């Protein structure tokens, strides 16, 4: 039972990471009607920026703060230069354009940081596990990820639902022309939203970096999962992204923990090791298919769409 709880925490942690990515994706997709395949590149850029700034400043917190700022700026610059000309075109153009950006960023990173990749070392205080329940130890850094993301989610909720900028974002999502006609600078608003999405993706990348590896193309696999999350949760809905990210994270982790053993009852050992993870990732797509059949608008569709 405690073991199941521990695996649930692992699933939560993956879910939190997916939420950070999916929130930006869903904002950009839902509000700006923009399919952004280069979102994974911003995840990668965030991690590279953080790795560089942690090296330069020799401080984990300062490095992350600077990395976050750099990703925000990179996102806004990207929007002005490359994304803006794509608005109003159809989704195929978005996909082609942002796929080009994805390749561009991979090569850019190769030029700037080289092909080897980077690691971010955690400060030694972070290298411990804390007792969350009697007998259940959990890595401190992973708890930090869960708590930090919950804080970001709350902040995002307040910005979107309780502030004037958030009101404009919501209004822009419902009726772009009307908001423009009322004298709101919609261009600036979109730049801000894109920058916010970029910063969220970058934050996900840098939070994940110390437990994985900063490398070219690191955002591509996880971006697919993030797309699944926003489809399950409902496009444009941050609440939906939050719930769906946790569901997907739990399914993936619990599947990985229990399915291989289950399959091994029926098949050979190595077949179980290969089939288990494959089956658990299939479960996620199965859920997506079911959602598309029975609730095509997602589990928690955005209001007013």
């Amino acid at each position, binding site marked *: 039972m405690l073991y199941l709880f521990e695996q649930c925490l*692992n699933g939560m942690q993956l879910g939190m990471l997916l939420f950070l990515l999916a929130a930006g994706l869903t904002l950009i997709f839902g509000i700006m009607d923009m399919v952004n395949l280069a979102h994974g590149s911003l995840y990668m850029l965030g991690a590279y920026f953080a790795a560089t700034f942690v090296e330069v400043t020799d401080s984990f917190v300062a490095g992350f703060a600077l990395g976050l700022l750099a990703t925000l700026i990179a996102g806004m610059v990207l929007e002005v230069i490359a994304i803006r000309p794509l608005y109003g075109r159809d989704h195929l153009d978005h996909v082609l354009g942002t796929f080009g950006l994805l390749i561009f960023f991979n090569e850019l990173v190769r030029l700037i940081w080289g092909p080897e*990749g980077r690691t971010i070392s955690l400060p030694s205080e972070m*290298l411990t*596990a804390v007792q969350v329940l009697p007998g259940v130890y959990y890595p401190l850094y992973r708890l930090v990820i869960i708590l930090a993301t919950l804080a970001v989610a709350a902040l995002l909720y307040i910005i979107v639902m309780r502030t004037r900028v958030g009101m404009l974002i919501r209004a822009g999502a419902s009726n772009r022309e009307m908001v423009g006609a009322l004298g709101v600078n919609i261009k600036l608003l979109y730049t801000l939203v894109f920058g916010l999405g970029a910063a969220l993706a970058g934050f996900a990348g840098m939070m994940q970096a110390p*437990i994985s590896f900063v490398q070219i193309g690191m955002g591509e696999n996880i971006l697919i999962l993030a797309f699944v999350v926003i489809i399950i949760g409902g496009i444009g809905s941050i609440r939906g992204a939050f719930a769906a990210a946790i569901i997907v994270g739990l399914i993936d982790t619990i599947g990985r923990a229990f399915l291989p053993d289950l399959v091994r009852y029926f098949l050979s050992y*190595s077949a179980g090791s290969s089939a288990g993870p494959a089956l658990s990732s299939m479960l996620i797509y199965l859920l997506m298919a079911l959602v598309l059949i029975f609730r095509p608008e997602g589990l928690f569709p955005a209001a007013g769409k």
Partner: protein
Amino acid sequence: MKRTLLATCAVLALATAPALAQQKTVKIGFISTFSGPVAAIGNDMRNSFELALDHHGRKLGGLPVEVIYEDDQVKPEVGVQKVQKLIESDKVDFIVGIIWSNVLLASLKPIIDSKTFTIITNAGASQLAGEMCSPYVFSTSWNNDQTPQAIGLYMNQKGVKSAFLIGPNYAAGKDMLEGVEATFKGKIVGRELTTWPTQVDFQAELSKARNAKPDAIFAFYPGGPGIQFITQYSQSGLKGQIPLYTAFTIDSLSLPRLKDQALGIPGAQQWVRDLPNEANKKYVADFRAKHKTDPSFYGSQTYDAVPLLDSVVTAVKGDLTNKNGMRDAARKADFKSVRGSFKFGPNHIPIQNFYLQEAVNEGGEFRMKTVATIVENDQDKHVQKCKMPN
């Protein structure tokens, strides 16, 4: 003016042309990984190979050397393309390198079919030692299961009664876990194979290991994923509770990043940087002078390829078409290896010692240290399956 220039060109052409015709070179195609989280391994191999060439005046058997480096990106399908390119379009005389067992297995067919003389300097797929052994393919490394077999023996010595095994799900990962199982006398309470090379988050598996309550965990994770595994093992707080035994996970490439996280975690290897022989002292000292760090075992195996090739090219007096002559020369292993004495088994896999090694902190620098000899003159167990064609 124009006429003088033309004349100069003509004279130069006359002067250099005969020299070019006589100057035969030894062309070597080098396959390794130079991108992604395991690029450090490829770079270390290249640095050691270059250093060995420098030590030989950049000549093998008196002939100048040309090396073409190719990156396999840890992908078998890319590796085999690069091997085919080296054989068919670059027409190399030798292929050297290859880190990954799955890349090796994919590349073996074009190598064997074209009878390209090849020195494998890391990958130790058991098929190479057994049914796929070939007269022109030699290994300066080991067979995959030998190192974990040594660790299994050491775990018996330490009185470990039960173990949880974990490694990546590809050819070498399976060989490694089977290696431990072959010698470890205790109970195996769990085995996990994770997706390679993409999965670097091992938290779910570590939770599983903790829940299985073993006396010890055995792990095999080379390169960057190894750094992640050890880091996550430390983060999970398992370090004080369940001891970790490793193969190919802690080396002088990962030590600068792992630092004291690596202390107290034993591993086994056929070469350690402090082995007391003259060739090794020179290799390690010159490598440190140039790169400010210790070479890794990957480098040492690749370094050995150069004196081996030198003895081979010398024996056939530079006639690189005399493949049987080169094969017979290579079998004698007449060179000074950095691991001391060196001999090949009938399947062209070395018969060698395996040492227990640990990381130590030497005045702020973390280095590998030989602790004891676990097995002497170990021969892989696949040798009977090798029917060496002549």
